[in-house]
């Protein structure tokens, strides 16, 4: 059959679409725009974003415009908007704005500069941690939802166990037994690959048959891991891990990310399970499109809406977690300022210098609230089932 040779018979007029042309984005904005709180959340979010970026440039470098770690012992605990005492300060200690916008702390450091620096820390912690958790969540959820019905065989478990324990032993400097385990694993994989063709036709001997029995389905395995992870109160899990690891901002991001992917996994899995049964996915399979393209081109765009929403709200909770960790002294090590450790430093002077508590506290509140409002607005605008309610 050749399409080029056939002529088109036009005994009917060509059909035009009915609805006026409107992209999904326009439709989304229309719905989103009706939600005032969400718009406010978005605006605050943008403001926060700009502050954080500005904060990075203004407070870093060898001669920053706002120096968050400059100590002026003569000027400690000055309230917001107070003028510096120029007689006591050296020229390089004079604050950039010529007054202390948010006061100074117990070491005479400019709180405004410290808040700016903290904004960048909060932003990166929020985004990187959520980025990690979303990536893991999409990956795990996608596998559970799309390949969930496949079974893991006992031999798979066995050689993963060898591999993991072997690597672990090598890393722990027990090189000899570690290498032995790794070799064993390698030998087993080679053996499996070599006998693959034969084993299909020939009947298995009993121990090989046992190795090939289905142990657990991929879906069950992943979802039970999720359940187990959810059993731990995550803040204390993070606290434990952070107490073991050296304190650094990167460790905190990674740990927050690694302990918060479960929600995304559940969302993505649920979406994939229902998408997999949809006709357009069946049509894509019937066309002969590969699994990879079906997952990423056809299913993922339909599954990202809830992920986006949970990610936005996840950023808020990551910022909160980081602040909590820093407050307890497990967070980003000094002299780096974060909102959490400004808050924690301020608690000793809550009656003498309440601004040290209230400024970071209220900022955290506003930012977290705006993220949550924005996230909920997103959910309402993206979820077609909620559309009718507006």
């Amino acid at each position, binding site marked *: 059959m050749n399409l080029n040779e056939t002529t088109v018979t036009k005994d009917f007029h060509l059909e035009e679409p009915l609805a006026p042309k409107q992209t999904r984005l326009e439709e989304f904005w229309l719905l989103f725009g009706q939600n005032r709180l969400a718009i406010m959340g978005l605006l605050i979010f943008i403001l926060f974003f700009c502050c954080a970026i500005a904060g990075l440039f203004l407070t870093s470098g060898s001669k920053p415009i706002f120096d968050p770690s400059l100590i002026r012992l003569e000027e400690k605990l000055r309230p917001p908007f107070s003028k510096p005492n120029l007689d006591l300060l050296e020229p390089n200690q004079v604050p950039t704005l010529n007054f202390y916008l948010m006061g100074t702390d117990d070491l005479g450091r400019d709180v405004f500069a410290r808040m700016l620096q903290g904004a960048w820390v909060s932003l990166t912690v929020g985004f990187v941690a959520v980025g990690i958790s979303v990536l893991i969540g999409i990956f795990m959820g996608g596998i559970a939802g799309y390949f969930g019905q496949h079974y893991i065989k006992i031999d798979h478990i066995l050689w993963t166990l060898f591999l993991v324990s072997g690597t672990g032993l090598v890393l722990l400097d027990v090189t000899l037994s570690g290498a032995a385990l790794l070799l064993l694993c390698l030998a087993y994989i080679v053996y499996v690959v070599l006998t693959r063709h034969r084993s299909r036709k020939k009947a298995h001997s009993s121990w090989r048959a046992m190795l090939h029995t289905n142990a657990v389905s991929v879906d069950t395995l992943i979802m039970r891991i999720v359940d187990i992870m959810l059993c731990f109160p995550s803040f204390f899990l993070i606290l434990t891990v952070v107490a073991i690891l050296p304190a650094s901002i990167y460790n905190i991001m990674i740990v927050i990310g690694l302990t918060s992917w479960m929600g995304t996994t559940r969302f993505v899995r649920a979406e994939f399970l229902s998408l997999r049964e949809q*006709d357009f996915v069946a049509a894509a399979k019937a*066309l002969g499109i590969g699994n990879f393209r079906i997952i990423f081109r056809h299913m993922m765009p339909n599954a990202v809406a809830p992920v986006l929403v949970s990610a936005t709200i996840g950023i808020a909770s990551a910022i909160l977690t980081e602040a909590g960790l820093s407050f307890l002294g497990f967070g980003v090590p000094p002299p780096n300022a974060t909102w959490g450790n400004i808050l924690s430093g301020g608690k000793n002077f809550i009656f003498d210098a309440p601004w040290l508590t209230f400024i970071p506290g209220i900022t955290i509140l506003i930012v977290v609230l705006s993220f949550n409002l924005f996230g909920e607005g997103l959910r309402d605008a993206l979820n077609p089932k909620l559309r009718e309610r507006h």
Partner: protein
Amino acid sequence: MNSKNRNNHIILCVKDLKKYFPIRRGFLQKISGWVKAVDGVSFEIERGKTMGLVGESGCGKTTVARLILKLLALDQGKIIYQGLDISGFSEKEMRPHRKEIQIVFQDPFGSLNPRMTVGQSVEEGLRILGIKSHTMRKARLEKLMEMVGMSPDSTDRYPHEFSGGQRQRIGIARALSVEPSFIICDEPISALDVSIQAQIINLLKDLQDQLGLSYLFISHDLNVVGYLCNTIAVMYMGQVMEYASAEEIFDNPHHPYTQSLLAAIPDSGPGKKLEPTLLKEDAFDSSAALQGCKYRSMCSIEAPRCRKEQVLFEKIGEGHFARCWKAMKK
């Protein structure tokens, strides 16, 4: 006609297809029974012809379609496409043959990806065909849209901007994009208005004439099937009850179920209506369904033999098969 010639002539042959779905119950998800969604389906489709598959809702028509497309693994039986036995093919082995068989779905709203423009959806197929150049794909795309009666500027619109009939046309364009020789139409018109149904039927007929396509046309409406199809298979509870040419089915039906379906067609007289209780017969009770005729609780001429013995799908005339003791005796 000698057998080799005849085989050449048959595009799809399905033999005794079976697919049971497990029913899982309880905490441990133990299998407590089986839904015999497809339990003995055999038919042949000639090249360039249309076969109708009729049966009530839930009798397993869509499952047959998914089995033929290899979207579901079959439990038993053979699918022979153009002389090639594809029933044992793995996903990998099947991929190069995928584009030969396409499907048009019942639900025009679920069959197009809501996040892709119509053009992108149809273009997926052109990619599979291996057309690398963007301009060539574009030209082909417009040609396809025109063939199904859509204006070429609708390609950058999203599915929600179209009506059901238009989406069905787009679904047909997508199926045609990989240049298949065989298309399964799974109730393509039952979700549409009567006026639009005729348009889609005519479009399918035109395309068949132009491109020499073969169709498996699934429907629950004997009227439409009679108009469009050369041969008809009547299905009941996962089994083909009768299979013959359209004229034979209409003029000389042997199986009591076919007879009752024909009697239920409104314009052929005030025949007896099928009761909705029809569906209630224990489709899930495997022990009862194990032996005897599945239609016996509805059958007016049931005999003791129908209860005890497995009824076989037997030839009762030239190209006419039925699954009924009485029909065989005739």
